[in-house]
């Protein structure tokens, strides 16, 4: 089933592990060199930027193939337009198999063809059956197939999205189950997916699917949160069940959703610290931020700028206290940098992000700002803007 030879995948995993051992200063450079030279491995690009560059090139190549084939066969296309996307899918698969045969793995080029040929297939199914249900089902099945055969982590997302969209569509359009149960069904699917993740992740021989499993985990966590998020439930019930929320009223079972909007992120964060799992921690922090957004969306207790100031202060205090608490811990949770981690990387990243954030000029583009009084409108805006 797998397109790659198992030994090569194993060697690849061992080499990347040896690299991380080297950056953590467990092994010497000579040892790393010995590992990389003695183990036959796959052609990969560990650097994400390089991989993304090749991904772009691969997409250009695919679309140029599509373009020239279309030009050649224009007369044939008119009557058989339904077959065309499947033809492109076939072309994509052939090129992909050639790439795989040449041992390209996580290289960028193979990612591009995995992405493009799947896209062609789904468009083709959509045109042929004219039904979203069929498209989602294909996404679920073929996403999983691509994930297994080409050991591709992103296809796992495709498969998960296909699955959940299929179920959502089946319930809302074809009413297999009462629509009002949707949040709880979605939540139980999330729990189911997470337990599948736990099961798969516990199998020893599957470690090169690590990133695919990780995506499964992320998807199940995010799905679990959004299925019971107050804003999602309220907006969904407005569109699907025509529940009108009048002032002073709320959706049915509102307290459950209010509670889950905050309990789930809090649970993620605590659980992640307990399990020492960085991914769950990130999901927890991001979903918590979304919870605050959810509440602000319905209850504007404070104007946005005051909320920003207060939020900043609270966040600062939380971070400060955590740093103080963890500063000198030697084991378990700690503020000490990871072994071999590069502090220069973080500094450069923060430096580059800050330039996108800071209103360093007195923001002439904030002209829609509600100023207090009149009489000075000409004072600021220079003629340039």
């Amino acid at each position, binding site marked *: 089933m797998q397109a790659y030879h198992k030994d090569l995948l*194993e060697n690849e995993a061992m080499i990347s*592990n*040896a690299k*991380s*051992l080297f950056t*953590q200063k*467990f*092994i010497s450079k000579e*040892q790393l060199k*010995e*590992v990389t030279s003695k183990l036959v491995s796959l052609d990969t*690009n560990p*650097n994400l*930027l390089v991989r993304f*560059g090749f991904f772009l*090139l691969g997409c*250009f190549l695919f679309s140029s193939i599509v*373009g*020239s084939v279309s030009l*050649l066969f224009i007369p044939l296309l008119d009557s058989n337009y339904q077959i065309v996307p499947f033809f492109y899918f076939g072309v994509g698969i052939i090129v992909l198999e050639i790439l795989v045969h040449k041992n390209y793995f996580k290289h960028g080029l193979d990612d591009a063809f995995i992405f493009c040929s799947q896209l062609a297939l789904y468009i083709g199914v959509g045109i042929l059956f004219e039904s979203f249900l069929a498209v989602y089902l294909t996404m679920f099945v073929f996403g999983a197939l691509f994930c297994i055969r080409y050991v591709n982590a992103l296809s796992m997302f495709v498969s998960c999205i296909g699955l959940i969209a299929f179920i959502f569509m089946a319930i809302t359009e074809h009413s297999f189950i009462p629509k009002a149960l949707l949040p709880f069904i979605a939540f139980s699917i999330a729990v189911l997916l997470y337990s599948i993740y736990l099961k798969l992740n516990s199998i*020893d021989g599957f*470690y090169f699917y690590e990133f695919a499993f990780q995506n499964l985990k992320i998807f199940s966590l995010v799905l679990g949160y959004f299925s019971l998020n107050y804003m999602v439930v309220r907006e969904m019930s407005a569109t699907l069940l025509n529940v009108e929320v009048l002032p002073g009223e709320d959706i049915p079972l509102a307290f459950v959703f209010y509670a889950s909007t905050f309990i789930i992120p809090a649970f993620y964060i605590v659980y992640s610290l307990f399990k020492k799992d*960085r991914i769950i921690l990130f999901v927890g922090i991001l979903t918590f931020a979304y919870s605050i957004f959810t509440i602000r969306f319905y209850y504007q207790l404070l104007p*946005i*700028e005051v909320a920003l100031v*207060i*939020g*900043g*202060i609270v*966040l*600062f205090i939380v*971070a400060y206290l*955590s*740093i103080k608490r963890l500063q000198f811990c030697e084991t*378990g949770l*700690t*503020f*000490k*940098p*990871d*072994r071999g*981690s590069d502090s*220069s990387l973080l500094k*450069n990243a*923060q*430096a*580059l992000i800050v*330039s*996108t*954030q*800071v*209103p*360093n000029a*007195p923001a*002439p583009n904030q002209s829609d700002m509600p*100023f*207090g*009084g009149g009489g000075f409108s000409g004072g600021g805006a*220079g003629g*340039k803007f």
Partner: protein
Amino acid sequence: MTDKSSFLTSKLFEKDFISKEQLDDFKEYKAKNIFSLNTELLFLMYASVLLFTSGIGVLVYQNIDSIGHIAILAFVLLLTVLCFYFSFKNAPTFNKLETKFNNPIYDYVILTGSILSCVFLGYIQFQYAVFGLDYKWVSLSSALICFLIAYYFDSRMVLSIALTALTTFIGITLTPQKVFENEFMSNPVLLFSGIALGVLLVVWTIYSEKVELKKHFYFVFYTFAQHLIGICCLSGLFQEQWYLFLPIFIGIIYYFYKLSYTYFATSFFVFTLLYGFFGLNTLFSKVFDNSFLFEFFIMISPFYFIGSIFVFISLVKKFNKEKHASIS
């Protein structure tokens, strides 16, 4: 499953790549069960500073006539002074090499102070028009202040603010949002001043390298310069006077290609290739546009892309080989 890295490390041991001591060393480290929140907490701190200052940035312009407003201004000023007071107190003495605060929190205190002083400068100009009617002098003075702070306290974040302010001074808003929103300029004079500023930054970085003044700032400087010049040149190639930009473009591509080998910085390398490739395609489209051969070029385009992919693969291979050979 046993943890993946432990599993693979014992495999490496089985295959005799690492010694027993190294395996034990690794296991001992694993047993400590270390979970470092260093990056995460520093990032939270960073986010808190950005939230706080963007809130303040709006607040100072609101309710300008009221008493509360003056209170806010006084508060901002006091806070700025406090930030600098504590930072000066705890700062290591100035050194031309890289220095660090004992406590990383002060990096963020400095950041807060710098952003607040920019906000304050902007407000004073807004209310009292200290620099006349032209806003660009505010940008320039913010840039100067931030440069001083960045060099004194060795802060790359403040340096980045200074550089953004400097590009604002010459009239370019160099943020990714603007570039993606396609709001970029089509004014050749502006493009040339952008290029000039970029070249100036490169020259300054080379000079700092020579006199060993904060050498580690090179990454921020070069990143700014590369994108400033790269984007200006690419926009320039779309202009009517595109031939004026071509020599500069070729020169800068060559320069940064060499540079990526000096520092073995993958980001310089990749962006050089990307800018070069897009520039080349722009030129091709200039030549072949409206040509009767247009269909023919569509037909052979796959071969063009296959060819360029081969070129890129060999370039990346060469780069990686030299990079790995240089790891010490």
